[in-house]
């Protein structure tokens, strides 16, 4: 059984994440001047709401900081404080601190106290500066903010006092009623003062043990109505004398204040002058003692025929909630994943069925074949719909970037503005989870290496503030992410020099501008004169490329000197299925991910040059690309196929490294459902994963990177690198 409070707490933290994102987005909009009136309100609400929730869970540090923050935001909202850039800068940093406080509260751990304290100090300064601002307490000791409600109650009327005289008759006791219980019940209605009148109590020797001699005088401070009091005495009213004197003003008393010890405060307002009280007046309902909470006349609630079980009640309440709150439901991710697995099975089974039907020689125009076609269509639709359930907007990843930009900007001393576009672009959650790292890296790189220092920018006649733009869009069934900067662009001379120094290219290699730009993706390449801990702790863009390629993605760069660079990252929309080329090699059916294939070739004998007995290279547009016999590379055979008798695929692996794969034949393209080999076996060198084909057999998906890497290392073993000019940059 789940602890409901833990669940609510979790909801609170989830909500905090959303509110933090909204807060940041709003502040950035304000900074960019794109804020609307509602933006300021939304920003205020986000902080306000976090404060409110944090109060429930006694997260005092969070409440305190949110309160100070909120006070300043409220001033902006009311126009007492101008949202100038310095003020917004403080707000943005405060948003970061708030995020840290939320995370610390959620996961335990601490926050940078000095940073928090410094910001509180800045807030005090800001808040003091606002017109008519009451001073903000530096750090209120208790969670709830100080109350400022006093003024309203100075002329509040005295609480209503009911006077009740209760004299039981002997019959009351005879029916096993107990005065103590009645009084206790009555005390639930409000504060009570009871005096016992024992004047009629006779001497013990004449006392009738079953007689009744006592009278209670009760003063009840309560804004209840008379029926509530009568309700207490409901079962004894015929067996006692009961006098009830209402307070001067019947009904609940305006201005009644109930204060709890946790900051809770509850206060009734006096009814509006023209409030029609008749219908809801206590007197009208007083004679109905059967319901504890009398019902206003306007209410219409279906009455269940029999008392519902608590479970049914809870379900009903849940159903109402679901209906009332919104049209979305939250589903356990495991359930969605299970469904995706099952749909994967369905796709495979459908393909198997189709194949069997074809094998059985059934006429394509027959009813069976047509029904099967319909089934295939439906299956694809189900697959797309199920995949769509897991699709999420990239917003969650984009929202982490502004903070990163602020931090890197602070570290590098550069002024940076981040523009994001296409946050709503959706992609499968398997991809979402894995684009954050490459994006982080690319943005760091754009600020650290892409943007010039402020002085250099000013010298070049550019605005001091550099711009980094992050864009997401769908293009031909893939998601494309672009990170562009308006910096100096790639210094091609320096990049080429560096590549020559590192032995990555021959000194006399003739490279196009594009080829030079893409050298930065080569392993071990770093253009920073000193290794910067900002742009990835000593690792370069090759790592980004590696992780992107591992996802079936591609990355490229376009650069214009003096104008900036644009990194373009394209990824499949999901990692659960893959578009692949079905090939055969030495009788084995294999899948090669389409994303890795640059082009298919038909090699000519005169373009193939042996490096040694084992390695051939193919002359291709002025460079030499090593050839890899796929079957031999996987150990399926020892004999190499004749290159001119095979089909060649130019592929690109990690770091832009290219190779030509030789296979027996290409059997077409298809989307395959990716199956893990590790689940029941282990990782297999040269194989990325498996899939199930239409005939029900397992086909292996080639790990292009591994095969290419392997080929390169063998080629490197045989020949010195310099003898393979422009190998990688081809």
């Amino acid at each position, binding site marked *: 059984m789940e602890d409901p*409070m833990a*669940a*609510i*707490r979790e*909801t*609170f933290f*989830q*909500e905090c994440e959303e509110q933090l994102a909204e807060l940041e987005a709003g502040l950035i909009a304000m900074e960019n001047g794109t804020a609307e009136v*509602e933006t300021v309100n*939304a920003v205020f*609400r986000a902080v306000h*709401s976090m*404060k*409110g*929730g944090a*109060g*429930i869970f006694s997260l005092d540090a969070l409440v305190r900081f949110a309160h100070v923050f909120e006070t300043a935001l409220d001033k902006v909202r009311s126009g007492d404080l101008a949202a100038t850039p310095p003020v917004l800068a403080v707000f943005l940093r405060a948003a970061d601190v708030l995020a840290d406080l939320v995370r610390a509260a959620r996961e335990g751990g601490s926050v940078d106290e000095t940073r928090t304290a410094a910001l509180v100090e800045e807030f005090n300064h800001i808040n003091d500066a606002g017109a008519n601002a009451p001073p903000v307490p530096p750090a209120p000791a208790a*969670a709830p903010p*100080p*109350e*400022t*409600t006093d*003024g309203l109650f100075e002329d509040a009327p005295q609480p209503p006092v009911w006077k009740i005289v209760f004299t039981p008759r002997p019959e009351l006791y005879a029916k096993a009623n107990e005065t103590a219980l009645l009084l206790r019940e009555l005390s639930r209605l409000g504060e009570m003062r009871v005096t016992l009148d024992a004047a009629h109590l006779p001497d013990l020797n004449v006392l009738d043990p079953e007689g009744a001699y006592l009278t209670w005088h009760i003063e009840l401070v309560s*804004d*209840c*109505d008379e029926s*509530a009091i009568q309700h207490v005495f409901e079962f004894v009213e015929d067996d006692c004398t009961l006098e009830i004197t209402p307070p001067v003003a019947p009904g*609940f008393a305006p201005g009644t204040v*109930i204060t*709890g010890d*946790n*900051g*809770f*405060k*509850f*206060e009734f*307002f006096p*009814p*509006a002058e023209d*409030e*029609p*009280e008749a*219908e*809801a007046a206590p007197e009208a309902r007083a004679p109905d003692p059967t*319901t504890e*909470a*009398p*019902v*206003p006349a*306007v*209410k*219409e*609630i279906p*009455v269940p025929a029999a008392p519902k079980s608590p479970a049914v*009640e809870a379900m009903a*309440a849940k159903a*109402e*909630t679901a209906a*009332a*709150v919104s049209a979305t439901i939250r589903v356990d991710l495991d359930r969605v994943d299970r469904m995706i697995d099952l749909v994967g099975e369905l796709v495979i089974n459908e393909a198997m069925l189709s194949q069997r039907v074809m094998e059985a020689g059934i006429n394509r125009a027959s009813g069976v074949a047509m029904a099967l076609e319909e089934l295939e269509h439906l299956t694809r639709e189900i697959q797309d719909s199920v995949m769509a359930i897991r699709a999420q907007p990239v917003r969650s990843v984009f929202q982490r970037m502004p903070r990163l930009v602020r931090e890197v900007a602070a570290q590098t001393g550069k002024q940076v503005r981040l523009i994001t576009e296409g946050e709503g672009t959706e992609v499968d959650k398997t991809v979402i989870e894995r684009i954050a790292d490459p994006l982080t890296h690319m943005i760091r790189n754009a600020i650290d290496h892409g943007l010039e220092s402020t002085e250099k920018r000013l010298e070049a006649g550019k605005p001091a503030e550099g711009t980094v733009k992050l864009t997401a869009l769908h293009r031909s069934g893939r998601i494309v992410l672009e990170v562009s900067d308006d910096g100096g662009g790639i210094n091609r001379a320096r990049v080429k020099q560096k590549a020559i120094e590192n032995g990555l290219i021959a000194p006399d290699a003739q490279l196009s501008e594009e080829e030079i730009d893409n050298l930065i993706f080569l392993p071990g390449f770093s253009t920073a004169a000193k290794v910067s801990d900002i742009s990835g702790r000593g690792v370069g863009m090759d790592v980004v490329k590696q992780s992107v390629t591992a996802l079936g993605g591609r990355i490229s760069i376009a650069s214009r000197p003096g104008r900036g660079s644009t990194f373009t990252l394209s990824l499949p929309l999901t990692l659960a299925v893959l578009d692949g080329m079905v090939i055969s090699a030495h009788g084995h059916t294999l899948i090669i991910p389409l994303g890795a294939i640059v082009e298919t070739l038909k090699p000519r004998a005169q373009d193939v040059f042996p490096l040694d007995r084992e390695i051939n290279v193919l002359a291709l547009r002025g460079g030499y690309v090593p050839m890899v016999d796929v079957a031999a590379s996987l150990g399926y055979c020892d004999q190499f196929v004749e290159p001119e008798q095979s089909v060649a695929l130019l592929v690109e692996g990690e770091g832009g490294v290219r190779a030509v794969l030789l296979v027996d034949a290409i059997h077409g393209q298809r989307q395959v459902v990716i199956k893990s080999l590790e689940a029941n076996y282990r990782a297999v060198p040269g194989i990325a994963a498996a899939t199930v084909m239409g005939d029900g057999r397992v086909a292996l998906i080639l790990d292009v990177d591994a095969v290419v890497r392997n080929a390169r290392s063998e080629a490197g073993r045989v020949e010195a690198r310099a003898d393979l000019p422009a190998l990688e940059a081809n």
Partner: protein
Amino acid sequence: MSTTVLTVDDSRAMRDMLRHSLIAAGFRVLQAEDGVHGLEVLETETPDVIVTDINMPRMDGFGFIEAVRRDETRRAMPVLVLTTEVDVEKKNRARAAGATGWIVKPFDPVKLVDAIRRVAA
């Protein structure tokens, strides 16, 4: 027959909290995310008591209470404001709008239930 309470709050955590407390106290609970949504719920439901937040998107608590009071049949419907706002001016605005009571968060579930019982009875 249980008392029906409509809670209007943009915070899911707060709504969950209210629902949890109020259902435990035997109330039937309706929920809305903001004022606009609250009015939508009121088109088909007639709660005994409304508990509303002030700071909400689309339509805030003030606007919501005013809209509730504009309808003749809902003038007697008790509306409690549950808020972290402590500003006197805000409180006066809520009263002017037609709120029945004002409860300052963080709320004590017992006292909240008590407050609802008082206005519902």
